[in-house]
């Protein structure tokens, strides 16, 4: 489904200029969305209020609203979007298929299952992160085992992942009905993908995970790029493919798990961000860092819209991404079937 749609004749500096321009525009959009998110809401604050709250000179109420609620939420949206964008870019590059995103083939659902098992059956008070990591990695193992038995047919692997994710969704629903009511109420919000309850602790977890896993990706970036040339070429360039793939899959699964642990399964960001980044930047492969920036911006914009579009009603951002992303995926399928 990925077609190298841009002629290779384009000169390198020109392409780099375009990429820089696109990243700049994306960041500008993110800044505008951040300003909108920080200044509007049920408690209106002006830009100068926000600035003084950031400096620590605002009155108590403004400080609580800005520093205690809006800033953590904004940072969490950026970090989760970046993590999902990176995870999507890694999986899509490894599978050479845009549909092989963690949200489509069940890794997000598996992370949610792991987190729910932890919350409802083992330790209700602990952070759901460990459960989400374990659940995500176990799901990856299952899907890879299926992929091995399915063999060449990539579309069937994806369909198997979809089947697995419907099963995991049923497990999640079941766990919710078995959970004590005070957990179930939180978990219900969380199961649709919501940033309402994010705290600075969550942000610290996200930033820490992004830092460590991002560093790993920086270190293997050169080898990662050679994978796009095909396994044989990469091998002839001295890349140890098996080990590299395993490492990348684990990193991407951990990124997905961390994002899911904080906000629940937010769908379609990991699918759409890498594709948007590739199309706008006009690169032949999927740009890793471009996907991170795009994912962060898309999720931040989506979260601001989810908060404000039907205010005072707060839509879980995962529902908004599902409406837009579902339609987008439908369009991809329809277009490629023609």
């Amino acid at each position, binding site marked *: 489904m990925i077609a190298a749609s841009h002629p290779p004749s384009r000169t390198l500096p020109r392409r780099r200029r375009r990429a820089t321009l696109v990243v700049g525009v994306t960041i500008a959009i993110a800044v505008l969305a951040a300003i909108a998110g920080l200044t509007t809401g049920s408690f209106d604050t002006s830009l100068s209020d926000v600035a003084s709250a950031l400096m620590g000179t605002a009155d108590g109420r403004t400080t609580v609203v800005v520093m205690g609620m809006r800033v953590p939420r904004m940072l969490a949206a950026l970090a989760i979007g970046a993590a999902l964008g990176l995870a999507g870019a890694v999986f899509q590059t490894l599978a050479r298929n845009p*549909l092989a995103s963690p949200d489509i083939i069940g890794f997000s659902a598996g992370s949610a299952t792991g987190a729910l098992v932890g919350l409802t059956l083992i330790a209700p008070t602990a952070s759901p992160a460990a459960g989400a990591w374990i659940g995500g990695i176990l799901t990856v193992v299952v899907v890879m085992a*299926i992929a091995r*038995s*399915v*063999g060449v*047919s990539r*579309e*069937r692997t*994806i*369909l*198997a992942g*979809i*089947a*697995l994710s*419907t*099963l995991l*969704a*049923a497990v999640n*629903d*079941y766990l919710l*009905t*078995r959970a004590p009511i005070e957990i179930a109420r939180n978990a219900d919000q969380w199961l*649709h993908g919501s940033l309402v309850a994010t705290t600075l602790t969550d942000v610290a977890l996200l930033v820490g995970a992004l830092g460590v896993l991002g560093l790993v990706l920086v270190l293997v970036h050169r080898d990662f790029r050679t994978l796009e040339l095909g396994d044989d070429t990469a091998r002839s360039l001295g890349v140890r493919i098996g080990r590299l793939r395993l490492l990348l899959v684990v990193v991407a699964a951990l990124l997905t798990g961390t994002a899911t642990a904080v906000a629940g399964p937010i*769908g*379609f960001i990991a699918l759409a961000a890498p594709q948007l980044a590739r199309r706008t930047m006009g690169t032949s492969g999927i740009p890793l860092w471009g996907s991170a920036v795009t994912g962060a911006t898309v999720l931040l914009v989506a979260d601001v819209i989810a908060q404000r579009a*039907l205010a005072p*009603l707060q*839509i879980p951002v*995962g*529902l*908004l991404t*599902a*409406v837009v*992303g*579902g*339609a987008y*995926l*439908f369009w991809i*399928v*329809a277009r*490629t*079937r023609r």
Partner: protein
Amino acid sequence: MRLVILTVAMVVAVIVLTVASLAVGSRALAPAEVIAALFSDRRDAAGVIVHELRVPRTLTALLAGACLGVAGVLMQAVTRNPLADPGLLGVNAGAAVGVVVAIAFFGVGTASGYVWFAFAGAASAALLVNAAARPGRRGDTVGLILAGVALSACLGAVVRIITLADDDTFESFRFWAVGSFERRDADVAAQVLPFAIAGLILTLMIARGLDQLRLGTDLARSLGTSPALTIVGAGAAITLLCAAATSAAGPLAFIGLIVAHIVRRTVGGDVRSTIVLAALSGAALTLASDVIGRVIAIPGEVEAGIVAAFVGAPLLLWLVVRRAS
């Protein structure tokens, strides 16, 4: 012969499950109590439970299950896709959007009112997914399902947002929670029954044509069947059945898939001779899911849709993996 035995077995299963469904719940009743309450007008505790809670619930499950079973068989016959299912392809999600739009924006409160909206929603979703994936082409089983899953995800989220946005809708929606038979109005089944019957009659009318189409378009035409008319009729029947089932029970997935496979594996892919069996097994399966959901989580309940997914999702996974290898 096999068909007769299976049909009789399914009739027995439906009867046993009906009694179980009337007896089982957060307050269990002995079968004797159930039968006594059924045939008397006394309104003691058992009488109220049976007449006002469990009879409507059981009838709704039977009706929705029968519709979805037949719709599943029809859908697999039309698309020639062993993975087709009204829930997976987004038709039920389309009907669900119709229902919540009717409740939220048009103030429709009765099933006989919103079933029309469900019909419109199901028809639009069916046309969309059909146009996107061009079913009927042999070997293309994946694209149809992908399009359906994408459509379901999108429409399902729309349903959730509308119900979150509107308190009244949320109230009504609670009685119509996703794939649950809890707290049915007594007459929901009766209100959607005409749609179900219309769908079944239409199915009987086009079943012969569908079976001839399996021999190939040319041969079917020479046998006096109009392929285009048959496909359109089948689409209308599927839409009627899915709209009736979803109006009554909410969007249920996997019932159609499971029924179609039970039927095909035991008595073959002939549509006309298996309609009754499909309706019976759909009804039995849905009622069994509902009863199991009431038993495994006492004092709470697990929705029938979740129970059905525990059977249907592994089946789907197995079908995908097996057909590939």
